[in-house]
């Protein structure tokens, strides 16, 4: 296959954003969360009976757009029309009423109930007395199950199913609901090849019956197989829509997903540091977990910064948690400074001067309702206290030092993180780890949801700290960030490590291509 590119020899056909008989129309949809613009004037249309894929990196705006269509979020501005009717107020009931339903990534299942009830949670098949007709339910469930031809019984308890099977049931729920518009968010992430084939066949069949599918997936070959049209989103903006004909290639898609104006880029790539002669600081071998992670192995040498990239469902998060001991592993050996670590727990890690930065500061990583100083001293409590009595002056000095170091805008060391901006919150979290004088930092999403200024400050820190001898393993779904910071990048896909790129070989498109498909 000849290499194509959008600028040059690509023969891909670009579709107009809107067409005459559009079933779903989005005009100027804009949504911001604080300073982060999740969607920026997104406008395009989707036809009835079309399988329309949304493609884009993490943070491109796909999930926000989906939330708007589902009625879970109200856009700041813009209009959404379904079958000509404009949505006046956004709510899940309204969307459901308009015929929209979704297969979520986090399954919304009822594990305490049977498969059949999970397929038809809102449908009560009643007999002529008004009582629930269980045999009718069983029959209908059986029909649905047979479409997929998998070995589950209608009255099996949901919690006896594997994750993949639960996912299929969730899909069946949507399909059996006879809604007009079905959104599928990474539906095949838990399925094997056969099951995926079946799903494609079902979608194909339903499409001919007029059901419209909005499909989100990183698996480019699937996307190329099933889609009629593919819309690329990037950084919250609508980029273009491709017609999925025989001329469309994977490269076209990846190029569009990445295609940033590289001049004046936010992240100037740091000079590659060849650490190949240096001793190994941190080594992982055979890290695995049943149903969650295939064996992973990597190493970090002194002086370098390595990164991990992966899209949703790639297992990225799991790896970061498992090497720090926040989650258990089935197998795997971790070596730090040539010493095999026997107990992988956060306490042990901190003792060895390895710190962890959590990926979702709202969930964990910061005590939102305690003062900043209280937060900061958490990993350093023993040093900052005498016979367990806290040394208030020492703590105040310590807090002030790091607040200044990271230029955190905060009126008082007792201010609570929830009153700070996202950027300052993130910097606070960083200072907590840095203050413990780590030799290695495991960073999970260093700059999620913060403004550009704070992002570049944090990047500066990381580079400075690395120069001063701190090792970094950075897990991120922000590709340019990783490219700018790392000497070597490992790529994860579908719960497995699929490759790594180093130095000059690091290239956004190459990485993204490995992470997709």
């Amino acid at each position, binding site marked *: 296959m000849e290499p194509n590119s959008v600028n040059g020899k690509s023969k891909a056909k670009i579709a107009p954003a809107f067409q005459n008989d559009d079933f779903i129309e989005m005009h100027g949809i804009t949504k911001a969360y*604080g*300073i982060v613009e999740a969607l920026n004037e997104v406008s395009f249309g989707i036809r009835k009976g079309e399988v329309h894929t949304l493609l884009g990196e993490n943070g491109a705006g796909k999930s926000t757009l989906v939330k708007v269509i589902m009625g879970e979020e109200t856009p700041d501005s813009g209009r959404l029309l379904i079958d000509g009717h404009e949505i006046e107020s956004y709510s899940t009931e309204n969307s459901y009423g308009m015929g929209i339903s979704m297969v979520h990534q986090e399954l919304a299942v009822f594990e305490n109930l049977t498969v059949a009830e999970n397929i038809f949670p809102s449908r009560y098949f009643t007999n002529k007395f008004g009582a629930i007709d269980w045999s009718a339910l069983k029959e209908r469930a059986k029909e649905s199950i047979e479409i997929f031809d998998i070995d589950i019984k209608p009255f099996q308890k949901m919690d006896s199913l594997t994750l993949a099977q639960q996912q299929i049931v969730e899909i069946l729920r949507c399909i059996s609901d006879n809604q007009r518009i079905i959104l599928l968010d990474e539906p095949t992430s838990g399925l094997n090849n056969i099951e995926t084939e079946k799903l494609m066949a079902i979608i194909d069949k339903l499409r001919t019956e007029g059901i419209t599918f909005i499909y989100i997936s990183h698996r480019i070959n699937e996307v190329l197989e099933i889609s009629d049209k593919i819309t690329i989103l990037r950084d919250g903006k609508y980029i273009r829509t491709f017609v999925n004909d025989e001329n469309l290639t994977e490269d076209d898609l990846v190029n569009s997903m990445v295609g940033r104006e590289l001049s004046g880029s936010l992240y100037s790539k740091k000079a590659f540091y060849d650490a190949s002669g240096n001793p190994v600081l941190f080594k992982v071998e055979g890290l695995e977990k049943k149903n969650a992670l295939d064996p992973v192995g990597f190493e970090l040498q002194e002086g370098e910064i390595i990164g991990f990239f992966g899209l949703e469902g790639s297992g990225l998060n799991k790896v970061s948690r498992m090497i*720090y001991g*926040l989650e258990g592993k089935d197998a795997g050996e971790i070596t730090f400074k040539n010493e095999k670590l026997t107990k992988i727990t*956060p*306490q042990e*890690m*901190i*003792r060895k001067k390895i710190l*962890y930065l*959590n990926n979702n500061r709202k*969930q*964990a*990583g*910061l*005590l*939102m*309702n*305690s003062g900043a100083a*209280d937060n900061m*001293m*958490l*990993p350093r*409590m*023993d040093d*900052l*206290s005498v016979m*367990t*009595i*806290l040394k*208030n002056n020492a703590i*105040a000095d310590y807090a*002030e030092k790091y*607040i*200044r170091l990271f*230029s*955190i*805008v*905060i*009126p*008082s*060391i*007792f201010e609570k993180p929830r*009153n*700070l*901006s996202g*950027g*300052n919150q993130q*910097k606070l979290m960083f200072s*907590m780890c840095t203050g413990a004088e780590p030799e290695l930092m495991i960073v999970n999403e260093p700059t999620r949801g*913060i*403004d550009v*200024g*704070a992002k570049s*400050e944090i990047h500066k820190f990381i580079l400075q700290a690395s120069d001063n001898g701190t090792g970094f393993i950075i897990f991120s779904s922000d590709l340019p960030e990783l490219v700018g910071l790392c000497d070597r990048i490992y790529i994860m896909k579908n719960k497995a490590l699929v490759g790594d790129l180093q130095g000059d070989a690091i290239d956004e498109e190459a990485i993204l291509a490995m992470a997709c498909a």
Partner: protein
Amino acid sequence: MAMSSTETVSSISRKKRFSFGALTIVLITALLFAFLTFTSDTFFTYRNIYAIFYGVSFQFIAVIGFTYLMIIGEIDLSVGSVYAFSGMFMGYLMVMKDVPLIPAIGISLLACVVMGALTGFLIVRFKLNSMMVTIATMTLIRGLASNFVKRMYGATYPSVMRHLSKIKFKEIYLTIIIMIILVVILEILLRKSSIFKRLYSVGENRLTARIYGVKSNRIIILLFALSALAAGIGGILLNSRVTYADTAIGLGLEFHLLTAAVLGGASLYGGRGSMLGSAVGLIFLATILNGMVIFNIEPLLQQLIVGIILIIAVYVDTRLNKHE
């Protein structure tokens, strides 16, 4: 907040804003005291106040462990049963097995600690709901306690044991002195000690605490053991005061302590609580009951009032804390 993150900071305040979690209950109790003083001759007498504090001092020791558990977001409904058990076990050992005072205390408290630790272990290991588990242990331990009641055939405890609750130090009951000392020490520690800061972090966000190396699991087990120990000590003293094994000892104590703790600022959702608050909460409840006696209100109405207070207190707590 659209504040840029990169403005330079010239001065950062070090002044701690005065935050006093137990302030509300202290104020309310003070008001109550004032009200009763002005409306009754018999309330503000040395004897009456002394009696209130004496009564509360027995419950206070048990509320210590209870409050700590609430801070980390757990609950121990077995405190009432342990309260009964510890004194009765000790009495049994002394009366029926001729065990001397100190060893009897030691054995009984050891048993309490073991039971508490086991409870904590089950909850941590199997990720169980502490309410459910402690309902089970509550029943179990109450059964054990009743067993000892039977075996003592209504005998009174030996006089050395009965004397424990009556020990005075400079004319004031020792238990009251201990209570005051403990309140002061523990309250200060809660604010100033690293151990207790860790507790609050576990209660506020268990995962965050774990990330920064706080041994959440170990702390939970420890606190359940502590709660049992505290209830055990309190129980020995109360049994001593009652002078014999009365089956009613400790019945409903857990709910009483819960009310007091919540009044004092603790939350069912964890992350908050103070010793001073719980102590004042106990005093508040005791004063209300005392006031009702003074005004000849049916003791029967007392339960009603306590129930209403409880719901209101938690309602306020829920409105304030649930949204966070």
